């Protein structure tokens, strides 16, 4: 018995009827061997139309249907739902686009009718080759993992925990805080960073739903949305959780080392915390500097610890966490133009990056917020250079969008402690949008900031003079001679972050930041379902943007990972015939989602049905045609080609 299809022709009011001879098509269809019944209707998508479709399909016992109507992008789902309601698999419903791609673009009615006929024939040909696509669901885990414990990660964790989900934060440093913990004044309006952050850190510590794994580097994110496994390597800190950060071991420790936290401008002992009140509170021992690990018998810290919290035998751990979604909030690195001689940045002169300036004005910094020069004296004149190392061919090519704000805020921060200081801002265009911004800028100018406009910031030269003062040459202007220069630099993702992107199999945008799934509709999603992005790893952000992104990312995850709900998988996926597959692995290389893996035992490749998105590029790649792209098989495509050419 020849398989037949029930055909529905839609007049779409006059939209199709006026341009295509539907009566002729109906007459043709009645004699077409592939059609069991044909019906013409005014508006198939209207409630009456849908009812007509469902009643007809049921009464006629139809096995499959073709709707000659508008675009499938508009109404395929509508008609698939009709099919589902009468017990047919949605794959048995297909469409011929005789409106957008025929009636509306073919002025000659005869030609339009002929074209419509061929499009319908193509759909009919295809129709009998379509097979049911079973819908598949997976259980989803509702817990989350946050990678990165800066402000974005902290807010993401708190929000998810509030919804009752278990959250694990993986942080590479020994305690939380990211960049914000190193700052006193938050852009744009000099908000107090410690006032904002301290209660959030306490909230993290107190929340039973949140686990912080610090000193951890994530090495793998396996699985797919709803069923991720995140694997991290947790460094040994040689101090147990019994440590409350009382600092009794600091003084007795004989080893001083450069502090990365102070950006090399201060030191700490080989046993240290980043700052008092850190979360987690436990100290950590730097294995490379600690004498014990160099073969020495030193036990100074152990002898002074009231809690017996030091454990030299602690080992590195591999931590594995199952979760439903991952939020990546690893931040960005400050761009340091060390290699640009014109910046005069050598670690010895009084030229500082803005990040170093923040350390020098932060209460947990090396000078307890006292802004001073390298020799300890107080600067009386400070030049702040905008776009330092940005928008130039030998630095960052792009504008980071956050540095102008910092540069303008510098004046306010400086005058808080050195009211008589002269502050110069050397700038080109100012990137500081918003209603409040102009007001804030004018306030700084009135308070004494001198704005020096310069069209060629790339040609500004900064050089230390013999007497320690800094000479700033500005093209087209009088040169400045100042005590200190602050370079307002941009941000970028370092190599480690870029490597991490490739571990995740997530794309970077042309400027090297994590690329979002859609710039408007899903700016906090990565290209991989279930892996969200927040904060500066997406684009350089101030705290306000980082928090907003984190909340958005978690919001999306919460709405899709609901306890008790399953996740529906894509049905039009591909699968590999293991009898034909020669294990050449070329499909694996071509899959954009790394959905295919090679089975060493069977010596053939298999597709993970939960990750496959159905693009079909593997099916096109396979040199022995071992891969079937469901619903877009070679046979189906050939049948359509025959239809459009011979119909």
């Amino acid at each position: 018995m020849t398989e037949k299809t029930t055909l529905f022709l839609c007049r779409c009011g006059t939209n199709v009827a006026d341009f295509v001879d539907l009566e002729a098509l109906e007459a043709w269809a009645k004699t077409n061997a592939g059609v069991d019944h044909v019906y013409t209707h005014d508006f198939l998508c209207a409630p009456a139309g849908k009812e007509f479709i469902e009643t007809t399909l049921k009464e006629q016992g139809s096995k499959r249907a073709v709707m000659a109507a508008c675009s499938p992008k508009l109404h395929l789902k509508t008609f698939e739902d009709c099919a589902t309601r009468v017990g047919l698999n949605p794959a048995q419903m297909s469409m011929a686009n005789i409106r957008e791609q025929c009636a509306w673009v073919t002025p000659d009615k005869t030609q339009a009718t002929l074209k419509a006929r061929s499009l319908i024939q193509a759909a009919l040909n295809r129709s009998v080759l379509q097979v049911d696509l079973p819908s598949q669901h997976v259980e989803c885990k509702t817990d989350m993992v946050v990678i990165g414990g800066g402000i974005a990660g902290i807010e993401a964790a708190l929000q998810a925990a509030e919804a009752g989900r278990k959250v694990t934060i993986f942080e590479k440093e020994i305690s939380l805080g990211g960049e914000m913990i190193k700052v006193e004044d938050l852009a744009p309006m000099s908000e107090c960073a410690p006032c904002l952050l301290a209660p959030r850190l306490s909230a993290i510590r107190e929340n039973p739903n949140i686990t912080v794994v610090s000193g951890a580097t994530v090495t793998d994110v396996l699985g797919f949305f709803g069923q991720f496994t995140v694997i991290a390597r947790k460094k040994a800190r040689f101090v147990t959780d019994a440590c409350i950060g009382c600092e009794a071991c600091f003084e007795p420790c004989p080893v001083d080392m450069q502090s990365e936290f102070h950006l090399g401008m201060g030191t700490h002992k080989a046993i240290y915390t980043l700052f008092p009140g850190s979360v987690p509170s436990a100290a950590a021992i730097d294995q490379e500097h600690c004498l014990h690990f160099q073969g020495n018998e030193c036990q100074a810290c152990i002898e002074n610890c009231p809690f017996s919290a030091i454990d030299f035998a602690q080992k590195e751990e591999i931590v594995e966490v199952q979760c439903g979604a991952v939020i990546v909030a690893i931040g960005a690195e400050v761009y340091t133009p060390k290699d640009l001689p014109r910046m005069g940045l050598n670690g010895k002169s009084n030229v500082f990056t803005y990040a170093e300036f923040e350390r020098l004005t932060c209460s947990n910094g090396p000078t307890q917020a006292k802004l001073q020069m390298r020799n300890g004296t107080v600067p009386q004149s400070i030049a702040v250079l905008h776009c330092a190392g940005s928008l130039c061919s030998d630095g960052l090519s792009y504008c980071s969008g956050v540095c102008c704000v910092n540069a303008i805020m510098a004046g306010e921060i400086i005058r808080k402690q050195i009211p008589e200081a002269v502050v110069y801002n050397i700038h080109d265009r100012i990137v500081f949008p918003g209603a409040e911004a102009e007001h804030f800028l004018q306030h700084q100018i009135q308070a004494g900031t001198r704005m020096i406009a310069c069209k060629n910031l790339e040609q500004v030269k900064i050089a230390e003079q013999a007497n320690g003062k800094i000479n700033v040459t500005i093209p087209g202007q009088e040169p400045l001679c100042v005590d200190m220069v602050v370079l307002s630099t941009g941000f970028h993702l370092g190599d480690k972050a870029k490597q991490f992107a490739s571990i995740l199999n997530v794309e970077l945008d042309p400027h090297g930041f994590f690329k979002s799934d859609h710039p408007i509709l899903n700016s906090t999603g990565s290209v991989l379902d279930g892996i969200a992005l927040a904060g500066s790893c997406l684009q350089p952000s101030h705290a306000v943007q980082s928090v907003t992104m984190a909340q958005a990312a978690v919001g999306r995850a919460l709405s899709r990972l609901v306890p008790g709900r399953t996740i529906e998988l894509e049905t039009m996926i591909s699968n590999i015939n293991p009898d034909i597959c020669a294990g050449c692995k070329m499909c694996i290389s071509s899959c954009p989602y790394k959905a295919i893996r090679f089975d060493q035992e069977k010596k053939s490749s298999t597709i993970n049905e939960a990750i496959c998105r159905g693009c079909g590029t593997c099916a096109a790649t396979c040199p022995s045609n071992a891969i079937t792209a469901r619903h877009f098989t070679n046979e189906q495509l050939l049948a359509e080609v025959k239809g459009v050419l011979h119909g």
Partner: protein
Amino acid sequence: MPKVKAAIYWCSSCGGCDESIVDLGERILAVRELVDFVFWPCAMDPKLSDVEALADGEIVVSLINGAIRTSEQEEMSKLLRRKSQLVVAFGSCACTGGIPALANLKSKASIFDRSYLHSPTNVNPDGVVPMEHSKTAEGYPMELPAFYDTVYQLDDVIDVDYYLPGCSPNGDMVFAALSAILSGKLPPKGSVLLPDVALCQSCDRNATKPETLTITEFKRLIHVQADPTQCFLNQGILCMGPATRSGCGYPCIQGNMPCTGCMGPVGSKDQGARMLSALGGVMEGESEEQIAKALDGIPDPAGTFYRYSMSSSFLGSKRKEVKP
């Protein structure tokens, strides 16, 4: 027990497939016990009339090698088809056109022009080219077979029962095929007498091919020394293995030469399209310039991808139906 009658014929052929019978080595003695070759122009002297005198179906199996380029080859193939129970398309030329079918990249006119008129060693002032009908100086009529304007494969002109590809099939393959035929343990009609799987499955270099294979440039063997332990594709050297049937024991690869595809396509009739598509899936290159530069490393795509299977492709043959 009477011996089984068999025939071996060569069409547009180099003779290698006939020699491959000798590759049986000592096994030829066992074959000789069972098989009586009634017609084998390469090795024996029976005439056309001897074949015509046989009853239809009297020959149990005819192994026909070579592509079909002339009317004589077509006629002989049809004759042997009538006289045989089974016909095996023997060797790449009979199966998929082989090397002779590369001539389909040229027109008959340009081939004649080159061969008979304008080759450097021609002296042909009267521009004489072969003609089907002509007369000698004495007036005797002369006939030559027609030279077709395209190279066909065997199943374009007759019904073929089995296919044994290879350029040429090696002794083991021939022995296995003959054993199957003589014992009657044959797969369904129309099958290839070798596994339906690509070469990579049996190649021991496949383990060195990474799952993230990316090819940034195609290197030619005249420019590089291939690493004898690494998958060729992983070295940027074009190997047709992924789009070529296995079963040959991959002697080329063991000789540190990449597969050139003589065992024909698997899973498709269009070996070139498959290999081309696979390479497109794994090669690198974002900009048009980068892609063009990489592709310059394949100076002859048609010849490389259809080296043995041109008459099996659509673009390079008269075939309308190329269903696998």
